[in-house]
């Protein structure tokens, strides 16, 4: 091509481009074109703790940025680091973050202190939220921590944890004629009978007793507080609470030595290698016995509902939410992000493309794709997950103790008391009587009126 012809072709191209731009301007006025990327120039600052959900989501964020014109700056830290930094930022009235993870243990505190924006204002505006986004599609039990006393919503859950029971050595149980335990009494019997067989411990657990223990206390009809969140008087020395503590301490007698200090992954590892038969914990920790490549017990494992107590069947559950700080500078942009991140489309993508199962949209959990992906060895794990996650939304919100702002203080006291019982230093009654006094004193020191 000669220089002259190249010059002539460029000129023609430019002319064509200019004509097209002119035509577009004539049809769509300039402001309307700008509106196609309504958040152009906005940098959205968000923070959360590190989680697989965000690692997966990060892959799609460029698509979101391209669609909206905004840049997303997502800061991910370890859970304790994030909680510390976010707590400080929000409680000191900061505006560094446009959206944040609302850690469920902090949710009540943040909502009561007015640190979060009321998301009903966004979902209630048809211009901001299309009908198909459907806030009611989120599992009600997972949404409970993100509502205030009047029912206003301050967060939407992106992750759910449902307490299930994993059994790694059904072969051993069958040999002994033992069935999957459905009650506390059966659980006690199975743990005791399996313990020591073929070098397998009856049960494994981990060091955060204030997570493992309350379902047993509640199973016997007790609770951590009298009537949370309204009445947060500790209820640690009720006969039911003492019974729960005694039961759980007895259960741990069939656990490996040193279980009181086990971390979650140590406990999971004991299950994956078939060194322990039962682990009762959130689905994400239990289901790897069936799903993980590391599992040496895939063929002999089962995942089922955790056993029911004589009074209540209250398996623990939790969820993590996304919310917008009250002082966020870009609230509408933040809502756009939350809407996108928790949309049915993205949720489905995460399930289909990455097998990410701990989402909280009912329509996705009940979909055929989800069921297909999460049915292993004939077990519908999704149905189990949904059943447990829904539970606190039906009738009594029995998980309210866990999101009460007083729980961290009382939970610490409970941990120490349980260790005294489990190590045989004190009888359960004495330990829990002392714990009750300590919890009341600690709450009063912290300014709680009881």
């Amino acid at each position, binding site marked *: 091509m000669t220089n002259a012809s190249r010059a002539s072709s460029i000129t023609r191209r430019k002319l064509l481009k200019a004509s097209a731009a002119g035509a577009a301007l004539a049809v769509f006025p300039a402001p309307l074109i700008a509106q196609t990327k309504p958040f152009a120039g906005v940098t959205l600052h968000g923070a959360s703790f590190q989680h697989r959900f965000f690692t997966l989501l990060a892959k799609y964020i460029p698509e979101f940025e391209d669609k909206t014109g905004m840049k997303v700056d997502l800061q991910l*830290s370890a859970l304790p680091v994030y909680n510390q*930094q976010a707590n400080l930022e929000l409680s*000191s009235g900061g505006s560094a973050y446009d959206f944040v993870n609302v850690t469920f243990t902090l949710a009540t505190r943040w909502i009561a202190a007015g640190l979060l924006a009321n998301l009903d204002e966004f979902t209630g505006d048809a211009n901001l939220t299309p009908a198909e986004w459907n806030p009611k599609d989120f599992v009600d039990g997972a949404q409970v921590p993100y509502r205030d006393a009047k029912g206003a919503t301050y967060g939407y859950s992106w992750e759910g944890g449902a307490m299930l029971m994993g059994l790694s050595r059904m072969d051993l149980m069958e040999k002994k004629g033992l069935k999957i335990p459905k009650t506390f009494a059966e659980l006690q019997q199975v743990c005791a009978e399996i313990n020591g067989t073929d070098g397998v411990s009856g049960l494994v657990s981990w060091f955060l007793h204030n997570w493992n223990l309350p379902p047993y206390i509640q199973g016997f009809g007790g609770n951590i507080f009298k009537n949370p969140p309204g009445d947060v008087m500790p209820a640690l020395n009720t006969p039911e609470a003492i019974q729960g503590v005694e039961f759980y301490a007895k259960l741990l007698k069939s656990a490996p030595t040193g279980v009181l200090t086990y971390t979650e992954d140590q406990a999971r590892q004991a299950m994956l290698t078939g060194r322990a038969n039962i682990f009762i914990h959130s689905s994400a920790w239990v289901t790897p016995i069936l799903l993980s490549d590391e599992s040496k017990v895939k063929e002999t494992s089962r995942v089922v509902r955790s056993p029911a107590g004589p009074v209540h069947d209250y398996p623990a559950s939790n969820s993590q939410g996304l919310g917008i700080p009250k002082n966020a500078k870009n609230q509408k942009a933040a809502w756009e992000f939350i809407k996108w991140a928790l949309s049915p489309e993205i949720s489905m993508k995460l399930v289909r493309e990455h097998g990410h199962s701990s989402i909280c949209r009912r329509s996705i959990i009940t979909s055929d794709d989800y069921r297909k992906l999460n049915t292993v060895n004939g077990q519908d794990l999704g149905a189990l997950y949904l059943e447990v996650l829904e539970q606190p939304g039906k009738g009594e919100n029995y998980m309210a103790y866990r999101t009460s702002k007083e729980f961290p203080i009382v939970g610490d006291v409970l941990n120490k008391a349980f260790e005294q019982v489990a190590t045989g230093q004190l009888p359960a009654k004495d330990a829990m009587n002392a714990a009750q006094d300590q919890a009341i004193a600690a709450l009063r020191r912290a300014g709680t009126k009881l």
Partner: protein
Amino acid sequence: MSESSLRKATPGRLVAITVTLLILLSPFLWLLQMSFKTNDEILQFPPPLIFTPTLQNYISLWHSAFSASFVNSLLSASLSTTLALLFGVPAAYALSRWAGRGKHALSFAILVTRMAPPIAFTIPFFLFYRWIGLLDTITGLVLVYTSFNLPLVIWMMQPFFDTIPVSLEEAALVDGARTRTVFTKIVLPMVTPGIAATAILCFLYAWNDFFFALILTRTNARTAPVAVVNFMNYEGWEWGKIAAGGSLVMAPVLIFSLAVRRYLVSGLTAGAVKG
């Protein structure tokens, strides 16, 4: 006690030294061996003592945000140490040579800032930094560490200057030296062990700090100790990386201390048997 009895290595003493060393070094050795294991091996019970070492944890660290945090730690610790010495050493000299009333009160006032726990300053620092835009910056960290190390430098260095006879400086002045020359050419070389010991302590304080870094940094200025904690994920702790990160965090301090150990011992014990 005679010098020969001090040096005599009896079997009893050797055993005592070995046991003491084992007790002192076991946490470090345990951490180090963990850093060469896979997560599975780390979580095995009982822990395997014979294993095939892997460098995977260190390689993963190198490719993660930890490397940037490590550089942030190096920068903030070395810059703050330099600044603290730059201002603190002349201040200590001035305080040492100053004979005016209020000297002791001033010395005590300088030390008071070190007596208060860091938590007392953290929140005001956080709010102030947010206001002036120093949150999550190396500059912000350097300023905090310098302000905490400055009193330490003054208090550590003042006794060193006190031990240098003023007559030496006067003789130099009589010979025509200027005050600055006296300070840099005569006084400073005599307190080198003290400066080395003080520098190590300042570096250690800044290097090991977790609390200020946790509150005042986010991602850009995150330091190594906070970065190590970031391997404690919600879905499980990355033990291998935690161990490798911990080993790496210890390395510069060990190297620095070994390099100046001669000065460190003489600096920290100077004046111990005087008077």
